């Protein structure tokens, strides 16, 4: 177990025009489960590979525990990594795959066996120990890859999209298993994914990367409830947040937002900030579940399409010229072409400056 610290890390690939990572600083506490998320190409793998020692830094430092490691070989860093395509050695059995690192380290045979068997037991792959990787299913390979990391008992675990080659059901299972393992081992873990469900369910802390920079970091709940930017708001949460253009106006009851034709009183917590922007445009973010149907309907829209998702219905409609979706209880949802009465749960909305994208 160890802290991991990235100090002003930068990375520019050879022949690349722009920096892939720019001045990235991140402190990870010992035992913490940190998830790096972001869209494809934002530099998640690059960051992870720099921590692993597979990519050189162009700038900055990386510390693991009290050692500066960015000049060290991967083998000197006391880390283990699980790759997206598992990277199992095809010419070795499962047991040999798992024990490879221990054998290289010259560990005693008895101890190697004890560790491999213990890990195999935890991961439920005991019966597979003599098989070759090609004789395993995707989920089994995934477990072996995790086992190979576990037996080494490293200071830091690195995962690069470990579940993205699995089908949805298996992904759900493995997600639960990874969480269970982390509870048990309490190892410092850095986990890369572009799947925000994985990020939300696994992380102690989520770090959202955007174009090689940290856009926001915090607990999953913080990111969900108080996104710092429009980018984070759009990236976290599924189905995605609706963004509606609005204008700050003064009404009889104080500061209000003019949305299409409707004039809605601003949320109390934000009224003061908005008062300074009278007459200016803002963008408001409403999560699909923050459209509600109750006794005080404020808007009437026409339903373009209704998708029954089981416990909820996703109702698509156009409002203020923007395609929106609302997650409603099926009994309150109208059908296609029908009128739908809605209220925006105004105390839950986010408000962004349309110019900078920052939350107000």
């Amino acid at each position, binding site marked *: 177990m160890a802290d991991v610290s990235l100090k002003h890390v930068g990375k520019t690939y050879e022949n690349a025009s722009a920096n892939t990572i720019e001045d990235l600083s991140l402190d990870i506490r010992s035992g913490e489960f940190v998830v790096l998320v972001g869209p494809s190409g934002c530099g998640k793998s690059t960051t992870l590979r720099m921590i692993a020692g*597979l990519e050189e830094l162009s700038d900055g430092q990386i510390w693991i525990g009290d050692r500066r490691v960015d000049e060290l070989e991967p083998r000197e860093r006391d880390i*283990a990594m699980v*790759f997206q395509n598992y*990277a*199992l*050695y095809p010419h070795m059995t499962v047991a040999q795959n798992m024990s*490879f690192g221990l054998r*290289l*380290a010259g560990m005693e045979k008895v101890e190697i066996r004890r560790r491999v068997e213990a890990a195999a037991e935890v991961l439920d792959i005991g019966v597979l120990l003599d098989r070759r990787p090609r004789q395993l299913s995707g989920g089994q390979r995934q477990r072996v890859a995790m086992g*190979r990391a576990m037996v080494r008992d490293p200071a830091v675990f690195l995962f690069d999209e470990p579940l993205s080659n699995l089908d949805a059901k298996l992904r759900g299972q493995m997600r639960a298993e990874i969480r269970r393992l982390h509870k048990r081992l309490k190892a410092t873990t850095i986990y890369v994914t572009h799947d925000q469900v994985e990020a939300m369910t696994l992380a102690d802390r989520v770090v959202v990367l955007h174009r090689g920079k940290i856009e926001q970091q915090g607990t999953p709940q913080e990111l969900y409830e108080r996104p710092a930017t429009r980018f984070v708001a759009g990236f976290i949460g599924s189905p995605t947040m609706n963004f509606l253009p609005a204008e700050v106006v003064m009404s009889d009851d104080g500061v209000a937002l003019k949305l299409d034709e409707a004039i809605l009183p601003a949320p109390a917590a934000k009224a003061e900030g908005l008062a300074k922007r009278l007459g200016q445009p803002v963008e408001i973010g409403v999560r699909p579940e923050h459209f509600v149907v109750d006794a005080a309907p404020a808007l009437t829209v026409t339903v373009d399409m209704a998708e029954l998702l089981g416990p909820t219905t996703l109702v698509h409609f156009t409002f203020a010229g923007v395609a929106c979706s609302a997650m409603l209880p099926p009994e309150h949802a109208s059908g296609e072409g029908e009128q739908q009465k809605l209220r925006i749960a105004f105390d839950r909305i986010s408000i962004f400056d349309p110019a900078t994208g920052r939350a107000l």
Partner: protein
Amino acid sequence: MSVPNILTAASAGTKARARKPVTRRQKRDWVFAAGFLAPFMILLLVFQYVPLVVMAKNSVLDYSLLNPAVAKFVGLRNFTDMIEYEDAAVSFGVTFLFALGVVVTVIPIAFLLALFLNSKLPARGLVRTMIMLPVVTSAVVVATMWSFLLDPSNGLINGVLNLIGVGNQPFLTSTGQALPALIVMTLWQQVGFGAILFLAGLQGLPPELTEAARIDGATKRQVLWNVTIPLLSRTTLFVVVIMTVFSLQAFAPAFLMTQGGPQEATNLIVYHIYNTAFIMQQAGYASALSVVLLLVVLAISTLQMALLRSRWNY
């Protein structure tokens, strides 16, 4: 698109056709396959398989090329002669030594060159050109050039040896040095080809495997021994078989540089066959030698496949 169909249809043979009526689609596939394969198959038949059959037939005859019409059936006498007289054994022995020498030197050197070409070190382009040049140069040119280089009195190699204080070496005129000299020349000529094959193998390896090994704690050398080399066994097998078959059939060096001498020290089997047929005019005996060579090449490459296959069965 239709290729797998053809293959299954071809291997299933007549049995499958008896069970299922031939569809129009299958018929069309057959016509297409035949059309594409015909030019190649006809050439192969005329220039490869027909001569093979003729060779097998000739191996039980005693005749001379000057007057092939006068041929006498001698049964297996040509083969028993081979056992009785030493020429065949000597020549096969020389050829095996030659092939062994070529293979055991080409494989490691070609592999090291491929590692170098696959690295990020400078001068890769230059080295690549240098090692490929001999491969694409005519064997005759190479042999002639090396004859000059190896000249006992004023060759370049002896010049260099003199500079570092080693006296003149006889090379091709010495029974002890002639075969090693030919091996070195062949190594020089073939190593580029081997390196390119290894390079292709190296570039086909998924980079994550070496990365995983490095993270698992392997040094560069341990990665090489434990991951790269085992994973390349398929390529290694291929290079070994190619080089073996090539060396067993080498002709130009013996013909152009040593005429099989001195004292049969470089009497490679194909050159010996040539001599027997065209100089000594014993075409039947030469055919019998060819049949044995063919069987030996087949046996050796099959053995190599069998030995090495178990290693890459994953």
